[in-house]
C-alpha cells in the first residue's frame, strides 16, 4: 500500500511542467491586453491631433500647410506640427518659436529653435506601442545633441495616382513620388471645401510607429521626418526636393522594406505602418480614427489619401 502523501520525482516534474505550460498560455494573453491598452492610447493621440487640426481649420478657413519653406524660398521651413501647437495647448512653445529664420524647422541651422525644443516632450506625438527613438538629431548621431522629438504620426499629402502627383525629381522615378492631392500639402494649404470626397472619406494623419528593415535585416527609422524632428519642413531650392513630416501614399499598409521606391533617407513615400498586428491607424478629416487593415486594396488606400478623386469609399470598417 502506497503512502498517499509522498510524491515521486516523475509526478513532481509533470506537475512543474503543467504549471509551466499554464503560465506560458497566460503570458501572451497578458501581453495582448497591455498592447491593446497602448493601442488605445495611440489612437487617442490621433483624436487629439484631429481636434487641433479641425480647430485650426475653423479659425483659418484652411488646414495648416503640411510643410513650409522660409519666406525667401531658399531655406528649410517648418511643418504642420508647429502650426497646430497653439490648438493643442502648446501656445508657450509656439509663441517662442522663431518663424522667420532662416531656416526655421531645420534645427541644425537655428540655435534658438533648437534650444527651445531640446528635450521638449509632446505626449500626443508618441504612440506608446512604438520602440522607435523619441529624440532625434541626438546621439548615436555623431554630430548632433539637439534631442528634438520625432512624431509617430505623419501628414498625408495625397496619393501617387492624383493628377498633381509627379516624380520627386523629374525623369528619375527612383527618387519616389510627390503628390498634393491630400489635405496636408507642401508649400500650400488645402481647405475643407476642397475635400469633395467628404471629410469622412479622406485621411489626414497616419501612423508610423515601427522600424523598417533593409536587405541585411538591419533596422532603420522610416518615419517621414527621417531623424530631423517633428518641426522639419520643406525647401524648394533643395537639390533633392525633400519634404518632411508628410507622406505621399505609394505603398501598401505595413510595407516595411527600407529600399522600396520612395522609402529611405529623407524619402517622400515613407509607409503607413505600425507595430500593431495586421494594420495601422489613420485619422480622417472628420476627426474619426480608424484601424486600416493591411489587406486594404491599394486603390482604396489611394482613394482615401486623395481629397477630390471622386471615389467615395463605402463600407471599409
Amino acid at each position, binding site marked *: 500500500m502506497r503512502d498517499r502523501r509522498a510524491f515521486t520525482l516523475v509526478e513532481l516534474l509533470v506537475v512543474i511542467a503543467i504549471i509551466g505550460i499554464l503560465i506560458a498560455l497566460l503570458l501572451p494573453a497578458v501581453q495582448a491586453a497591455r498592447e491593446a491598452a497602448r493601442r488605445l492610447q495611440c489612437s487617442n493621440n490621433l483624436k487629439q491631433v484631429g481636434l487641433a487640426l479641425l480647430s485650426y481649420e475653423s479659425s483659418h478657413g484652411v488646414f495648416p500647410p503640411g510643410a513650409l519653406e522660409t519666406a525667401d524660398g531658399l531655406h528649410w521651413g517648418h511643418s504642420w506640427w508647429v502650426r497646430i501647437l497653439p490648438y493643442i495647448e502648446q501656445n508657450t512653445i509656439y509663441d517662442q518659436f522663431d518663424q522667420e529664420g532662416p531656416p526655421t524647422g531645420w534645427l541644425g541651422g537655428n540655435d534658438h529653435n533648437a534650444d527651445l525644443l531640446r528635450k521638449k516632450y509632446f505626449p500626443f506625438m508618441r504612440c506608446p506601442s512604438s520602440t522607435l527613438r523619441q529624440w532625434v538629431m541626438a546621439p548615436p548621431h555623431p554630430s548632433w545633441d539637439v534631442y528634438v522629438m520625432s512624431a509617430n504620426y505623419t501628414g498625408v499629402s495625397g496619393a501617387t495616382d492624383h493628377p498633381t502627383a509627379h516624380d520627386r525629381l523629374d525623369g*528619375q522615378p527612383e527618387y519616389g513620388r510627390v503628390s498634393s492631392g491630400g489635405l496636408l500639402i507642401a508649400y500650400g494649404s488645402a481647405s475643407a471645401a476642397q475635400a469633395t470626397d467628404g471629410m469622412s472619406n479622406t485621411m489626414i494623419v497616419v501612423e508610423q510607429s515601427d522600424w*523598417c528593415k533593409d*536587405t541585411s535585416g538591419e533596422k532603420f527609422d522610416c518615419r517621414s521626418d527621417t531623424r530631423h524632428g517633428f518641426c522639419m519642413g520643406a525647401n524648394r531650392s533643395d537639390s533633392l526636393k525633400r519634404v518632411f513630416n508628410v507622406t505621399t501614399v*505609394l505603398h501598401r499598409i505595413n510595407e516595411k*522594406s527600407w*529600399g522600396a521606391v520612395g522609402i529611405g533617407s529623407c524619402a517622400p513615400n515613407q509607409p503607413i505602418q505600425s507595430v500593431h498586428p495586421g494594420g495601422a491607424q489613420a485619422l480622417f478629416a472628420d476627426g474619426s480614427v480608424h484601424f486600416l487593415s493591411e489587406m486594404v486594396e491599394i486603390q482604396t488606400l489611394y482613394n482615401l489619401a486623395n481629397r477630390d478623386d471622386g471615389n467615395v469609399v463605402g463600407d471599409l470598417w
Partner: protein
Amino acid sequence: MVTLMVITALRDIYRRCAYALPVALVLLGLCLTGCGGPREILGKVSGKVTFQGEPVSEGLVIFSNTDKGVYMTAKLGPDGSYAVKMAEGSGLPLGTYQVSITPPLVEVPLGPMLTPPKPRAFPNIPPKYRRNETSGLTLTVEQGDNTFDVDMEKRASAANSRS
C-alpha cells in the same frame, strides 16, 4: 497549503489519465506552430544586369506592380548581380512586374544647398531602361526561384528615346 492541494489534485489527474499528457502536449505544439506564419507567399527573384555584355556594377533594379502597390528596388553588386529582399523575406509577392534600371540614389547633406552637385553620368544605363514606360521589361514572379537577367543595348535606346 493551497499549492499542495493543487499539486495533489494534478497528481490524481495524472495518475488517472497519464496517457492524456503526451496527447495534450502534441495538440498544444500543433496549435502554436499553426498560428502566425508569413503574410504573403514570395517568389525569389535574382539575376544579373549587363550593358553590351559588361556587368553594370552600380545602380538599382526597380520592380513595379501597380495593382498590388509593390514598388521595390534591388541594388546591383560589383559583378552586376542582384537579389530582391523585402522586409518579410527574400523575393517579391507573386504577380507581374514592370522592370526598370536606374543609376544609384545620390545623397546630399541638408542645409542651404544652392548649388546642386553635378549628377554623375551613367553611360552604361541607357535612358530607355530608366523608365517603366520605355524599358519594355516585364517579369512574372512565380513561386520558387525566378532568374531575371538583363543585357542592355545602346542601339535600342537611341531608337526609343526619339518616340
